[in-house]
């Protein structure tokens, strides 16, 4: 008998995962992938709740700055402008007609991540950690993140099929959504809540991009195989983890 889901995961499933607009092999494939994602989604959510509760008991601003720096590394210019733009290149010209809306969704996601990077900079500016965003350009903490699978960039170069990124959208963005929900349930700080609330619906949109691609486009074994290969990568224990920006705690951290 399968273990029950974390209550926040079950709410997420009921509201956003289970309802579907299509029937057919794409939806069946997505449900099979969902079953593979669930253990990670449950574990990440439980850790994010724990992290948020621990944050609530902290005094001072250091924990907020750590979150914001990690968020800037995830969504700031290095990722959102420089690296993420390359995701558009996974759709070759001869498949542009078929995947034109997929490219538009990804272009929209790039713009969303640009805004999220700005939100993290705002926390650092309004929290007094920096006076100008320029100061972040030379900061390792603000520009390097060690999550191999974030945005699927590491996985993308090994999984170049136009649909492969659907796995990132579906699996990783769900973790972001769950982490935000867990954080908002635990953290009262207005700066952090503002930063989380401002991006909540857009993270869910990135998840919906994945859901839509899986349901509507992943219909044949030839279309499903490269996506499942990307899931295989993302689901490796060392590939994906919850980032401090979304509520994870560093090993041995406060």
């Amino acid at each position: 008998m399968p273990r029950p889901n974390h209550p926040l995961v079950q709410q997420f499933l009921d509201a956003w995962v289970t309802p579907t607009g299509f029937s057919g092999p794409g939806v069946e494939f997505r449900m099979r992938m969902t079953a593979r994602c669930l253990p990670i989604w449950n574990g990440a959510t439980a850790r994010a709740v724990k992290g948020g509760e621990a944050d609530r008991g902290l005094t001072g601003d250091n924990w907020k700055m750590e979150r914001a720096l990690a968020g800037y590394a995830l969504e700031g210019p290095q990722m959102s402008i420089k690296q993420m733009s390359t995701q558009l290149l996974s759709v070759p010209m001869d498949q542009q007609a078929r995947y034109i809306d997929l490219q538009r969704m990804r272009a929209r996601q790039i713009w969303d991540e640009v805004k999220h990077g700005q939100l993290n900079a705002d926390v650092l500016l309004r929290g007094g950690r920096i006076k100008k965003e320029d100061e972040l350009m030379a900061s390792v903490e603000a520009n390097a993140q060690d999550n191999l699978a974030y945005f699927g960039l590491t996985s993308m170069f090994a999984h170049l099929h136009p649909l492969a990124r659907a796995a990132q959208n579906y699996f990783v963005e769900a973790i972001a959504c769950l982490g935000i929900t867990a954080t908002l349930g635990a953290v009262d700080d207005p700066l952090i809540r503002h930063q989380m609330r401002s991006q909540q619906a857009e993270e869910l949109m990135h998840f919906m991009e994945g859901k839509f691609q899986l349901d509507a486009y992943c219909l044949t074994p030839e279309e499903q195989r490269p996506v499942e290969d990307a899931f295989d990568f993302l689901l490796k224990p060392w590939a994906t983890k919850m980032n401090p920006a979304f509520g994870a705690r560093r090993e041995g951290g406060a």
Partner: protein
Amino acid sequence: MTAATIPIRIDHEACTECRMCYVVCREIDLNAVYVAPEPLHRFEIDPGRCQYPGCTACLMYCPAPDSIIEVGSGRSLVPPPPDVWTPDRRVARETA
């Protein structure tokens, strides 16, 4: 199949203009969601083309709670209530 449609609209206070409803509606060739001719490029739903509640596909991919509502009742359709995502409403998507 237009006999029993119910008008729905986008609540611009809640919508993030992410385009998912537009993409889905185009994908199934209804084209009921359109970009309004105004500077903000907001989306609107054409009641002459929308088949809700016969078709509810867009609601399944909308990420912004409360952003699509029934005009008459004011009922929020995001996240989709269980009565609007019954199997008979799903768009069949088979391999070519």
